[in-house]
């Protein structure tokens, strides 16, 4: 199946600097419809019917999140767009922001209207500073054209921290603190930014909203699999001939993305979802891309036959050890311990007990880490011990 463009429908078609080109493509019609013809409850209901799930990796049902924030008591509420994509190998949100900032503004304004928030934030990672002016200009043009009456959007810049892509750490950062994850409950929909009811949605999630409002949730939920509706935008990198951003209906096989669209050859393994993602061997390339199988935020990094599994896992763990916020012990100490062990395997000095130690650490971290970073940090180790155990065993020198 070729690409299906819902999220990327305007990318490469409109001029990201001129709102007029966006308006020619039905721009802001969904926001007008949501405001004039629908109640907030009806908007939320369409999103629930669409079964849209969060595109930042966690896959939480968007409509349920919005409903929770709508129903939470409180006069001031906030909507946040998470544009802090820091997952290794992910660049889809950069591509979206570069090519169609207007749809994002529209999606965020609809979210505000649905939950009853008059203030929105976009948290942009510091590494994307060069997109700041474009984004602010899109907001300004929308405001001047009268589309944002009663709704303000502030862009907050990150300062370089992977963990701030995690929603509770992100809110801490907007509040001006260290980006450390919070204990939950309470969840953000009850007590989020400044302890007010808050929704946080990924850039791509919000990009789907205008089309869902215009065409109806039923239209959207016709696409995809039983538990993964709609399309997903993938970032493909590594050993491929055509790296880039591709949008496919959920449930499409990994092979279509990796071999047909990105033209990879001699694939050994694929890391799906970045450093906290899963690793699949080539034999599993027909796995469907869907929440019920494998997805994450849609980063697909391809490694060919020349690559060393142990080196890949070692580098992944180094990244996670550096980016752990340090608040909880299993993640802070577990990632460090895994790096030390992987270093031994890298120089061919692993021990039998190291494999057991990796397995024990992985179990503890997955069970007891405070946030998604630590809970998912051991995946690269766990998956390669499952599919590439021989690569570890060949580097063992003692017990």
């Amino acid at each position, binding site marked *: 199946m070729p690409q299906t463009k819902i999220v990327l429908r305007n990318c490469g078609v409109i001029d990201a600097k001129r709102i007029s080109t966006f308006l020619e493509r039905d721009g802001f019609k969904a926001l007008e419809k949501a405001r004039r013809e629908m109640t907030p409850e009806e908007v939320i209901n369409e999103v629930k019917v669409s079964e849209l799930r969060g595109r930042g990796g966690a896959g939480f049902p968007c409509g349920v999140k919005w409903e929770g924030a709508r129903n939470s008591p409180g006069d001031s509420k906030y909507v946040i767009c998470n544009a802090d*994509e*820091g*997952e*290794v*190998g*992910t*660049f889809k*949100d*950069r591509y979206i922001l570069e090519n169609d900032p207007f749809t994002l503004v529209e999606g965020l304004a609809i979210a505000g209207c649905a939950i009853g928030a008059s203030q929105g934030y976009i948290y942009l*990672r*510091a*590494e*994307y*500073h*060069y997109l700041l002016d474009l984004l602010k200009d899109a907001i300004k043009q929308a405001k001047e054209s009268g589309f944002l009456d009663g709704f303000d959007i*502030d862009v907050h*810049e*990150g*300062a*370089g*921290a*992977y963990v701030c892509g995690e929603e509770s750490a992100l809110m801490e*950062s907007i*509040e*001006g*603190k*260290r*980006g450390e994850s919070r204990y939950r409950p309470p969840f953000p929909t009850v007590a989020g930014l*400044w*302890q007010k009811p808050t929704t946080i949605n990924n850039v791509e999630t919000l990009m789907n909203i205008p089309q869902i409002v215009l065409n109806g949730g039923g239209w959207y939920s016709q696409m995809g699999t039983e538990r993964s509706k709609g399309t997903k935008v993938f*970032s*493909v*990198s*590594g*050993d491929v001939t055509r*790296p*880039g*951003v591709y949008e496919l209906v959920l449930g499409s096989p990994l092979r279509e993305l990796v071999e047909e669209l990105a033209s990879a050859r001699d694939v050994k393994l694929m*890391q799906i979802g*970045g450093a906290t993602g899963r690793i699949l061997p080539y034999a599993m390339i027909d796995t469907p891309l869907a929440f019920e199988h494998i997805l994450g935020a849609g980063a697909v*990094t391809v*490694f060919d036959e020349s*690559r060393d599994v142990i080196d*890949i896992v070692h*580098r*992944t763990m180094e*990244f996670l050890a*550096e*980016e752990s*916020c340090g608040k909880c012990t299993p993640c802070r100490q577990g990632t460090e311990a895994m790096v030390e062990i992987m270093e031994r395997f890298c120089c061919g000095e692993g021990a039998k007990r190291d494999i057991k130690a990796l397995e024990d650490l992985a179990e503890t971290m997955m069970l007891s880490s405070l946030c998604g970073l630590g809970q998912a940090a051991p995946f690269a180790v766990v998956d390669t011990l499952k599919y590439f155990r021989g690569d570890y065993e060949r580097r063992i020198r003692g017990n």
Partner: protein
Amino acid sequence: MSKKVTSQNKVPGNLLMALQEAQTRLGCLSPEFMVELADSLDVPVNDVYEIATFYSFLSVKPLGRNVIRICKSLPCYLKNGQTIIDAMAKEIGIKPGETTTDGRFSFELTNCIGLCDRAPAMLINNDAHVDLTPRKISQILKKYK
């Protein structure tokens, strides 16, 4: 110790934003500056220091006029990112983590900067440089005085 401003600060003009602004203006968050900021906001210096040292784009060490950040994450590594790191070190005569004696460049390695489709990539200050080869390095650096 007073924690009255930071813990429930509802004013958007917060500590992190103050530090980001100072980083841009001064190039580094000196101990003197952090003490001054803490005093003016009536918070312990600890509260300022813990934020200043958490984020990789804030620095408590003096940096050069231009900060080079070459990506070391897997997608860039697969596209020979190490040869770019080596070529840069040779070109400016310092290792990652160091600043040239004339103060022109600081050289850092960074985690994924989201330019994996154009790997290997780097940031110099806020500018993205992509599809790097060792031969392109000297030409690119000419722009940064």
